[in-house]
């Protein structure tokens, strides 16, 4: 049995293109996935800057922003159900890059703004690894405005 080089090249390219169409392009064309949920809100300039910092620091390496169906209003961060409501495609409209994440070293942050409702609380958690409850982060190198905007962004996640 022999395979011709061109056959292999077309096979590989064809397979990859088909996968792209099926799992990226088709869903992208689906109007149901493009409709914002009522939870979807545009970010203010401050919050958008905070989000840029979230991206820059790759917080997504340790935090997801997706509440899966079985854990909705059931999963626990501190109190029963405070992980929040199930995430839907429409929650993420326009987010670039989207920050779903795949691994939780820290808790899910999709609705963190509903749990931590005051900026100073969040800022303390981020800045100083020694403060109670903030053992992992050492973002002492953030400027004050960066901390403020990042906190504003996190508060917007509900």
């Amino acid at each position, binding site marked *: 049995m022999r395979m011709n080089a061109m056959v292999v090249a077309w096979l*590989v*390219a064809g397979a990859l293109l088909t996968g792209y169409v099926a799992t990226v392009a088709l869903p992208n064309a689906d109007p149901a996935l493009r409709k914002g949920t009522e939870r979807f809100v545009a970010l203010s300039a401050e919050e958008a800057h905070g989000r840029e910092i979230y991206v820059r620091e790759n917080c997504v390496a340790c935090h997801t922003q997706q509440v899966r169906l079985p854990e909705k209003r059931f999963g626990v961060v501190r*109190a029963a159900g405070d992980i929040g409501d199930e995430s839907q495609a429409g929650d993420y409209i326009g987010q670039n890059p*989207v920050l779903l994440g795949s691994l939780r070293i820290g808790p899910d942050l999709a609705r963190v703004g509903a749990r931590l409702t005051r900026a100073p609380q969040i800022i303390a958690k981020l800045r100083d690894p020694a403060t109670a409850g903030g053992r992992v982060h050492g973002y002492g190198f953030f400027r004050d405005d960066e901390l403020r905007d990042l906190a504003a962004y996190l508060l917007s996640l509900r």
Partner: protein
Amino acid sequence: MLAWMFSEEEWSASRRFLIAGVFWGAVAVFYEAIFAWKIGFPGFLNGIAWFSSGRVAAIAGDAAVFGFASNLLIAAAIRFAPRLGRASGIGEGIAHLAFWSWNLAAGLAWWHLSAGWTRGRAWGEAPWPSDLLRLLAVLILGLAFARAVRRAGREILDDAPAMFVGAALVAMPVVLILGKGLFWPFHNPYAGITDALAQAYVATALNGFWLLQLAAAAIFGFVPALAQRPLHSAPLAYVALLSLCAFAPFAGPAAFVWGPVPFWLQTIGAVSAMLLVLPAASILANLWKTISARWRTIGESPAAAFLLTGAIGLVASASARAVVAMLGPSQFAGLSVWAGAEWTLWMYGGIGAVALGAAYALAPALTGRTFVSRRLQWWHYWLTTGAVVTSAVALMLGGLIQGAAWASGTIPFSASSAAVAPLLVLRGVCAWGIVIGHGLFAWNLFLSADSGEVATAAERELAPAAGA
């Protein structure tokens, strides 16, 4: 050693990729260890922007995929281009261009990610300058490879290693252009849930069509040479290629089981992810059958041991992934540190071990010197394998513990973190074990290239037994 980075003789490009792979391997394992250690001991290197956890994690990934594994596997891939006479089929000059482009990309990615310039996309953090340079490098290699095939004037694809290298070189531009959205003006063109799906597409295509195909080429190319036996079955190698083409492009959405993408996509993704055990298993079976004709090879050659371990690692990581693609287990293991086990098994147990096996097989051929210390090779092998297995088990256990705690509906997150903390520390210790192993490897290679004995003819030729 430095002189080699600028010389032009035969196989010099392959040698350069090898040395760069060893260098970036050191960077990758070092960053991996820093990240793992920071999770175990949060105060470690705290407050330094360039070593903040998230940035370190991004670099650990980029350096492992593109610096470490890719460089070593490209060094091998060049070897599998059809030869023109006795010379390498890929012109040295052109391959050097690809080399510098590829490694400039790796250097830029390290710099950009350290400084906080990132695309923020899983498996594709590096910003567009690195993407463009990587695209350039694979296009150059692809064209050179295609020319070598044409000039050699034969159906390369009765030759399994060449077939897989060709397939990988065709695939990578598609992955970069479509997956990373390398369209003018090079911003990420995707947003919202489409971006999530595009990120998942990058992951599955990059892993299945680039890393796995190059690893398959290295296995099919070097195992017969080391065992001095022909490859067990060419049709079985086609099975690997065909099953990859059938399933890998569709496995992306498996990352979102129970998540915010339509159920039909989750189903396609999950089923494809489960079926992706097949290509890995067919590669392992082929290797097994080839080497079982002469089991002594494993004891004699750390290169063969690494290649076999790598093939087993590929199956193990594909299986770990298949498990969390299922609805039931994913409720427990999904989004937990189980994903870290998948990564370790894949990157260091599977692809990385194959790349190291390839490096051990290649180095004498490329430097003309035998390794000075067999014992250091075995130390490297056992340290790496032991560390990978231990950390994979620790992370899988940790994932199940996390999952059970989350599913309780009463245990707070901090308690689940405390429960898995010892396992994460163990994993951090293992990560340093891998660093030490890599150091032994680099040291051994350096000594050998400098003052090793002249390599034997078999080491230099690396040709399979006659009749292969």
